[in-house]
């Protein structure tokens, strides 16, 4: 049984004349313990898929189920305990007036945990931040440290699934590698399932065993990492995207521009 199962997911945003279809018949499934990548250019709807699964958008049509339970039949608090998300921008995803301690203990308080103090210090150690960061404010931390706090916040409710929305694209290259390795370690330690959105194929290659290519709200192709590396992609767009990730090419840019 798959951990995440999305069937015929469609979503419209906006009203009246400005109403636009953002997602069109998306279907994908992710096995438990797997790390699944979603790639595509900006505006292809990758992040929107994550937001639908997380429950931040509610008016989609189709079916989303997690661990065998559909979104419609699940209670909201239970859903929170299973699915958490890490956002792209570590500067915008932490409340500027809350101490790290507050950021991490709020979810525990909402869900009525008792041993808040122990859990907070444990999770801080787990994401590679010492207890000395506990009473800092986000503006006293670097981008990488903030992203670690965001990861700690996502993990503190002990979810089974982490939705990662370009979690490293706002960080510089050396920090990116650290954070990606942290994700790999955490997945092994905690039996997590990842759904990773990225436009960086190197990140996907490093992290994921399966991936789906998205373009203007639809899934163009689903393939495994081996297929991607060994030229097993069948769709023209996927191949263009792969070639674009290797080097900058004037002709390719023109080709992409003409296609869109």
């Amino acid at each position, binding site marked *: 049984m798959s951990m995440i199962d999305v069937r015929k997911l469609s979503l419209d945003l906006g009203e009246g004349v400005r109403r636009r279809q953002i997602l069109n018949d998306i279907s994908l499934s992710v096995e438990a313990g797997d790390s699944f990548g979603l790639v595509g250019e900006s505006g292809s709807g990758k992040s929107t898929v994550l*937001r639908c699964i*997380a*429950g*931040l958008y509610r008016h989609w049509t189709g079916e989303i189920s997690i661990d065998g339970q559909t979104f419609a039949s699940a209670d*909201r*608090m239970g859903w*929170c305990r299973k*699915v*958490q*998300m890490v*956002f*792209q*921008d570590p500067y*915008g*995803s*932490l*409340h*500027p*007036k809350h*101490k790290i*301690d507050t950021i991490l203990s*709020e*979810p525990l308080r*909402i*869900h009525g945990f008792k041993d808040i103090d122990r859990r907070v210090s444990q999770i801080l150690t787990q994401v590679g931040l010492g207890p*000395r960061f*506990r*009473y*800092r*404010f986000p*503006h006293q931390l670097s981008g990488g440290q903030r992203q670690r706090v*965001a990861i700690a*916040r*996502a993990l503190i*409710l002990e979810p089974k699934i982490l939705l990662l929305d370009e979690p490293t694209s706002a960080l510089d290259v050396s920090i990116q590698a650290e954070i990606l390795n942290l994700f790999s370690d955490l997945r092994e330690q905690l039996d997590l399932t990842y759904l990773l959105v990225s436009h960086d194929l190197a990140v996907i290659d490093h992290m994921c065993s399966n991936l789906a290519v998205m373009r203007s709200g639809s899934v163009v192709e689903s393939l495994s990492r081996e297929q991607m590396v060994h030229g097993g992609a069948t769709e023209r767009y996927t191949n263009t995207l792969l070639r674009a990730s290797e080097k900058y090419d004037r002709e390719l840019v023109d080709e992409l521009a003409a296609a869109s």
Partner: protein
Amino acid sequence: MTVDTRQNLTLRQWMTTEEVTNGRQAFVQKVYWGAVGFLQNPLALIGLAVIVVLLLVAAFAPLIATHDPLAQDLGAALQPPSAAHYFGTDELGRDIFSRIVFGSRITLYIVMLVSVIVGPIGMAVGMTAGYFGGWTDKVLMRVTDIFLSFPSLVLALAFAAALGPGLENAVIAIALTAWPPIARLARAETMTIRSSDFIAAATLQGAGSIRILRHYIFPLCLPSVIVRITLNMAGIILTAAGLGFLGLGAQPPAPEWGAMTSAGRRFMLDSWWVVTMPGSAILIVSLAFNLFGDGLRDFLDPRHGR
């Protein structure tokens, strides 16, 4: 748990060290850095000093005043400033210095009462409208527009006609027209905060609307609202003085500064001090609130924070 084992730290080191060991220390450090910034702003300090003096004068008015503010002495009417009467006397021989000292109580009373009414109402309406959006926003904002379109002086005239002139009615009239700008400010702040990732994260963790409004949006709205109210205080003082000048605020013989200015204008050419003294008091106090509000903005606003 909060006992600091590093006893060799001085207080200053404890307030500036990078090694923060508990929540109380983090709070003290934040206040310390804010205060350091505030103390480097001389104009804000002048404003603060004037406001502190105003508070002290109001608190100890009976000790500071040299005469009874209501006692008339027709034999000593319209005396120029002298050792016996620091600011001179008015047309009924009352000591103007003592009247200004006691008048500070009325001014503070109006300012505090209006702020206490306006702040919570404005924030509640603005945050609710901004966070929920849609129909809630439309209804609340149209109500706000209606209140915003009342000219405060005309509304005060209507109140005076309906309820009789007096300090309380002036306060109600000012408060009714002073909350809409606060509501608009809180709404605008809320709308920029609402779409941020940390609110999405809080929603994901199961936080309800009330919790998000109280714990996430309120602390971010509060600084700009406090700054706005402080800057508004100058306007409140002026409106109150204007109402007093028109005879709709505090009633004679209460020593309200606006009313004193109004009463003195008949003698302005011969006895300048009757108008100038209360007028200067209004000017200085309004200016002080403005300067203090500007300094407070640098101190409180998260966008200027360190």
